[in-house]
Every structure is written in structure tokens, then in C-alpha cells.
């Protein structure tokens, strides 16, 4: 039992190390490359077109669910005035980045892992290398950068949809009109809240991109190997995101408190 736990722990640390060095290698290659922008914009447009409907649908319902739940609690304290602020703050700070990253992991992460894994086992990556092109530069960098940039665009899009959906539900089902809903938003959702939401989204999407590309790029063993890579990519991403969520929340709260103490800012 102790050996099993020890081995699992070592494997976990080894995996984290391998993924981190893969990400660093990709970013170094990105820094050195100048003519990758066409590939990156193509990948961004692919990620956005593949994800926007899912983000839109999820955004509508998550906004609606949250507002109904908050209304239930706030109504009992006669504090519905805070409905818009609390709802928006929760969306921007936590739910939005988390949801976008899970959607990206399921849709784009799995797709990238499968695509790269298939390319690996059918020797397409070796062929690229033999033709004098660095596969990290040609395949990995555009995908990673595209996932990271797209996550911010999708977060913005998803938040706008969620907030409007929440406003609509608040008006129709909770008796809180648009103006009342919007009036409390600035009170709870300041610049720091928005920034922390976007920082979290960037961290999570970096995890999605790194894990999915790493798992696909290092796939071995034919169709079975690709299947394993895709499953691992999806499961590990969710696991790492949950850990990263705790760490980023703690770290950002710490920075916020420090900033408040030192500069007195909010």
C-alpha cells in the first residue's frame, strides 16, 4: 500500500514536471518563431467556431440557474437588491472561468489530444520533422496559444450571455427589474474581480492546452494509445484545474489582501 502511494505520488510529480517542461519548450519556441501568426489565427478561429454555441447555451443556463439560487437565499433576508451584484461577481470570479475551462477541456482539449495522438501514431509528426519543420513550432505552439487566447474571448462572450440571461430571469421570475439588477453590479464586481476572473481563465486554459497537447504529442501504441491519451487528457485536465482553482483563489486573495493593506485599494 505504501509502495503504491509512493509510486503514484512519484508518477504524479513526474507527469507534472514533464507537462511543465513541455509547456516551457513550446513557449520558448513561440518566442523564437516569427511567422507563426497565420497558423495561430487559423487555430483561434477553429477553437472559437467549435466552441461558441456550447458556451452560449451553457452561459444562458448557468446565468439562469445562479440567479434563481441566489434569489432563493436573498429573498429570505429581503436583500434582493444584491441579486445582480452577487450573481455577476460569482460568474466573473469563479463560475465563468471554471465553466469555460471545462468546456474547452471537453471539446477542444479532447479534440487536440486525439488529433495530435493520431498524427503521432501514423508517423505524421515524424514526417514533419523529417521535412525540416519543428513539430512543436508547427503543431503545438499554434494550438496552445489559440486555446489560451480563445479562452479569454470565450469567457468574455460567455459572461455577457450569462449576465443578460440572469437579468432576464431576474425580471421574469424574481421580480427584480433590469435597473435594480444592474445597480448592484459595480458594488460587487470591481476591476480586481474582473482581472482575477481573466487571470484564472488564462491559468486554466494553459493547463488545458498543455495537458491536451502533451498527451496527444506523446501518444504511443496505435488506436488504443490514442484512446488512452484522450481519456487521460480529459480526466487529468479536470483534476489539475480543480487543484489550480484552489491555488489561484488562495494566491489571488492573498494578493488582494496585500494590496488592500499596502495601498488601500479595492
Amino acid at each position, binding site marked *: 500500500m505504501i509502495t503504491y502511494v509512493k509510486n503514484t505520488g512519484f508518477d504524479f510529480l513526474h507527469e507534472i514536471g514533464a507537462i511543465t517542461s513541455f509547456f516551457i519548450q513550446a513557449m520558448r519556441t513561440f518566442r523564437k518563431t516569427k*511567422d507563426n501568426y497565420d497558423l495561430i489565427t487559423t487555430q483561434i478561429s477553429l477553437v472559437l467556431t467549435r466552441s461558441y454555441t456550447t458556451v452560449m447555451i451553457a452561459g444562458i443556463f448557468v446565468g439562469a440557474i445562479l440567479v434563481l439560487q441566489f434569489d432563493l437565499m436573498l429573498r429570505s433576508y429581503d436583500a434582493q437588491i444584491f441579486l445582480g451584484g452577487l450573481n455577476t461577481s460569482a460568474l466573473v470570479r469563479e463560475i465563468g472561468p471554471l465553466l469555460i475551462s471545462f468546456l474547452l477541456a471537453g471539446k477542444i482539449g479532447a479534440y487536440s489530444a486525439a488529433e495530435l495522438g493520431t*498524427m503521432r501514431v*501514423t*508517423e*505524421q509528426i*515524424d*514526417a*514533419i*520533422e*523529417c*521535412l*525540416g*519543420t*519543428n513539430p512543436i513550432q508547427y503543431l503545438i505552439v499554434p494550438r496552445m496559444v489559440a486555446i489560451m487566447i480563445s479562452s479569454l474571448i470565450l469567457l468574455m462572450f460567455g459572461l455577457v450571455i450569462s449576465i443578460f440571461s440572469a437579468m432576464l430571469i431576474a425580471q421574469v421570475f424574481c421580480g427584480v427589474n433590469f435597473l435594480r439588477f444592474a445597480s448592484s453590479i459595480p458594488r460587487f464586481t470591481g476591476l480586481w474581480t474582473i482581472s482575477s476572473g481573466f487571470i484564472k481563465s488564462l491559468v486554466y486554459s494553459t493547463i488545458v492546452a498543455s495537458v491536451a497537447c502533451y498527451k496527444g504529442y506523446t501518444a504511443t501504441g496505435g488506436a488504443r494509445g490514442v484512446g488512452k491519451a484522450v481519456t487521460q487528457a480529459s480526466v487529468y485536465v479536470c483534476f489539475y484545474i480543480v487543484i489550480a482553482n484552489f491555488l489561484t483563489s488562495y494566491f489571488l486573495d492573498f494578493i488582494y489582501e496585500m494590496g488592500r493593506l499596502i495601498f488601500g485599494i479595492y
Partner: protein
Amino acid sequence: MSICFDKVSKSFGGKKVLDQISFEINKGEIFFIIGKSGVGKSVTLKHIIGLLKPEQGNIFLDECCVNELNSEELTILRQKCGMVFQHPALLDFLNIKDNVCFGIRNQQLTAEELKKSACAKLALVHLNEKILNQYPHEVSFGMQKRVSIARALTLNPQYLLFDEPTTSLDPISKNAINDLILELSRSLNVTSVVVSHDIDCALKIADRILVLEDGKILALGTTTEIKNSKNPFLIEFLSETFINSWDQVS
């Protein structure tokens, strides 16, 4: 001598795939590496182009030690080599033209020049320009193999490396690919290294044959030497592995 293996060893997961093998490949010859599955044929080929690094020994290509090169030097060296993989290994998100021109896409050529180059290379493998805008999945497997050969020719290589080029092909396509290897090697005056388990084809077009068994060299010689070998291990190996083809040849 153009390619030289000097006491090369390689293991995977504790299993020794290549065990101190040494041989030389001369300029302009068609060199076949044959053997049963898993004896290290493809591994040998991948060492030539630096896709794998040996644990021991050295590989020289034009007197340049391949395993000591860094990635930039390897990129330059690889421009001398055209590799045809066991799978056609065409990029499925690019059409045939872009696949063929992949190696020269950064050479500041106009679209017209790229198209012309793709047509010329496709003509060498007896394919016409009608398939230029098609995607790999829209053409047959045999055609994909030919396109992958055309792609390997784009950089005008001095060495052509074929990894089981006739695997999964019907007999007619097999013959066509074998004839193509012979034709290209002679007309372009390139050194061809072919990994295969097709003894029939090896005896038909090879200048010299290397037989691998359990990571070691079982035999190395011209087709006549291999055919007339009295080495009991070789006779046993050939009769065991290639009994049908051997009967036809004999």
C-alpha cells in the same frame, strides 16, 4: 561510403533491438534491410535520419556523425534525405499539393511555382495534377503512398529512405511501387535504403541486402550472395520467414 553504422546498439524497455551492428551503405546503391517483424529494421532506418539516437555506437551520413548533431544541424542534414514512412503519413488537414510542397513552403516561392513543383514531383511518381486539390482521405491508399514518395522528393534528396513501402498494398500496387523505387533510384541517382520483409522484391531490385535477426546482422551481401549463401542460419531464416516468396524465386 555514404552511410555508416559503427557498433550501434539500441534498447527499448530493456529489450535490445540493435546489438552492436556495423555496416556501410555505398553511394548510389539500393540497399535493402530485411528481417522478421520486430528485429529492428525500422529502428535502423530512423537512426539514419536522427529520429532515434543510439545508446552506443555512431551513425555517419556523409562522414557527419548523425547522433552528435543538435536539432538545427539535424534539420539541415534531413534536407539531404527523403523519408517515406510505413503509413503514408500525409497531413490530413492539407490537400495533396500542400502535402507535396510541405518541405519547400517557406522558400519564398509563388503559388504558381509551388503548384509547378508539386506537379513535377507527382509526375515522377506517375500521378497527374488532377488530384492536387484533393485531400489525402479522398484518394486511394496506393496513391497516398505515391504522394508520400513525391513529398520525399520535393527537397531533391541525395538519400531516399523507405520504411516498408509496400505494406498493406495489393500485388499490382506493390509491383508498381517497387518499380518506382528502382526507377527513381536510377534516374535521380540517389542512394536508396529500403526496409522491407518482402524478399521477392529485395531480390528483384536490391544491389545489396542486409538480413537482421534479433538485433544482429545475420547476413550482408549482394542478391546473388544472399541467394547462394550456404550459411545454415540464413537458409533456415529465409525458408522459415519467406517460404512462399523463396519458392517462387528459386
